[in-house]
């Protein structure tokens, strides 16, 4: 029987090396010996994706590699996520996510969605080309804590500002995350967002940072 540390390294390495089959096999082996699933996800799969984000930042990986790493991660996640014990945890945190109306690009959106999946959130994925008011309706319906929106083109980015205004008017505590090529830190701040990612690869980095923030958020929620 392999040691837990060895299997965690395998999970991490197969994500980094975009080895979908290898990741699936490592996750199954990890699950078969009943090692803690959450640890496998966070210290194996997510740790691998963190390295992927770093490789992207260093221009060693580009978006095609990041997408293939994400496929490997999802292969492992499909096996480990159902094994995470639900007992002792409060209701799941929730996020509404989608690409804004007029934008049919969803690569960055899907990478951010992946990070919420990793963190165990309930994800309401509205898809792409989503009418502005649908974000508001879905947030109200689900009472989600986070709304994440993506736009790859300047021509659609302005819709985000309207959505943020509509949501914050109804519920100022909702966290807003923006992403996409035209979205800069300035734009995110100007629009009243709480976080941003400017590119698909950068979305992974931002997503990883957000996992830390989300954990703090969940801890404070559990304490209150």
């Amino acid at each position, binding site marked *: 029987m392999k040691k837990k540390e060895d299997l965690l390294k395998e999970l991490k390495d197969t994500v980094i090396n975009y080895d979908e089959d290898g990741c699936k096999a490592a996750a199954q082996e990890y699950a078969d010996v009943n090692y803690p699933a959450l640890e496998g996800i966070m210290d194996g799969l997510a740790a691998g994706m963190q390295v992927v984000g770093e490789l992207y930042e260093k*221009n060693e990986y*580009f*978006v*095609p*590699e990041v*997408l*293939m790493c994400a*496929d490997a991660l999802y292969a492992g996640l499909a096996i480990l996520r159902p094994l995470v014990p639900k007992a002792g945890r409060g209701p799941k945190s929730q996020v509404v996510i989608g690409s804004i*109306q*007029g*934008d*049919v*690009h*969803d*690569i960055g959106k*899907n990478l951010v969605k992946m990070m919420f999946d990793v963190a165990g959130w309930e994800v309401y994925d509205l898809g792409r*080309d989503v009418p*502005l008011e649908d974000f508001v309706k879905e947030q109200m319906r689900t009472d989600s804590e986070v709304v994440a929106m993506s736009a790859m*083109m*300047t*021509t*659609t*980015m*302005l*819709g985000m500002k309207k959505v943020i205004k509509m949501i914050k008017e109804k519920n100022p505590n909702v966290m807003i995350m923006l992403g996409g*090529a*035209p979205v*800069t830190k*300035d*734009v995110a701040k*100007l629009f009243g967002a709480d976080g941003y990612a400017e*590119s*698909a*690869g950068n979305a992974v980095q931002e997503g990883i940072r957000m996992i830390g923030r989300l954990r703090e958020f969940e801890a404070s929620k559990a304490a209150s």
Partner: protein
Amino acid sequence: MAEMSGYERVMRTFGREPVDTMPFFSGMGMVLQPAIKKLGYKFPQVHTSAEKLARSGIESARMFNLDSVVIPYDMCWESEALGNKISLYEDSEDILYPTIPNKNWTELDQVNITDNDIETIMSRGRMQLIPEAIKIVKKEAPEKALGAWQLGPFTQMGQTIELDKVLKAVFKQKAKVEAILDRFTEMIIEIGKSLQAAGADFITLREPGVAADLISPKTFKEIIKPRLTRILDAWKSPKVLHICGSTDSLIEMMHDCGADALSVDIKNNLIESRKKLGDNVLLFGNFDVFALPCKAETTVEQAVAGMKTNIDGGVDAVWPGCDLWPDIKEENFRAMEQTVREYGRKASPALGRTDGGSLKK
């Protein structure tokens, strides 16, 4: 000496002849909401009528003293001509460009672009509107240079198959990707020739899907560059190559592709690019199409300062980094144009001035 017309200024720029002042134009989508309003059009209507396409382009250029008219605006023409349905957002109150919500080809293996598709492409979908609009502009606005454009093969492939599949296939099905890119390359060459034959004064090859924040410079060199070179080689001059996004590591390879001028967006470090290219290459760019002309909080003074920074970066003509966002702040955009004319009276690295402003030796 009398002030040059936009047409003269642009054509002399491409011909490397001295101009009176810096050109302010674009080769990418440039339709502006004040012009559309003045004409009484709705934004979705301008994409489906040659007349409205031409009139809105002319009015946009005249209203803000731009040197060129650009035809067309949206990026869905070819994908629609290959059988995909477009969404025009006719019911939306916002300005939304047409999109292809669902693509007929879901896998690379389904892609089949025949010789007949390429030969007949100009008669499919809305395609015939583009040469019609070009002819109207040429007749009605001879004082403006007319720019047409085509998406590059990789970006066009992403308009017909989901981009994430295309990107992954670069690794997993490289030969297939290259074969499809070759078909798109042939199609783009033929469309470009048709637009030039209709009267386009210059043409821009836009390949935003290949920036170095998306794919590696190695992939660009191996897969993209040979095809961009082939397209540019097949088109007559003047021709511009534009890539959005991170281009610092690509700029020299962009130059090798054979365009008469290069255009980059705000992510490019102009000063560094100019150092790499030298002073003999026409470089256009690169103002932020949201921050300067559109952002409600941007003052006229900030817009003016932004233009000066843009010119100081070493461009030979001020171009937007991408399609202009139609809903501009008029006072900002007018101030930007005036600043380019006044601050741009001095010679730029590759272009002299008629009043004696000489090139940097």
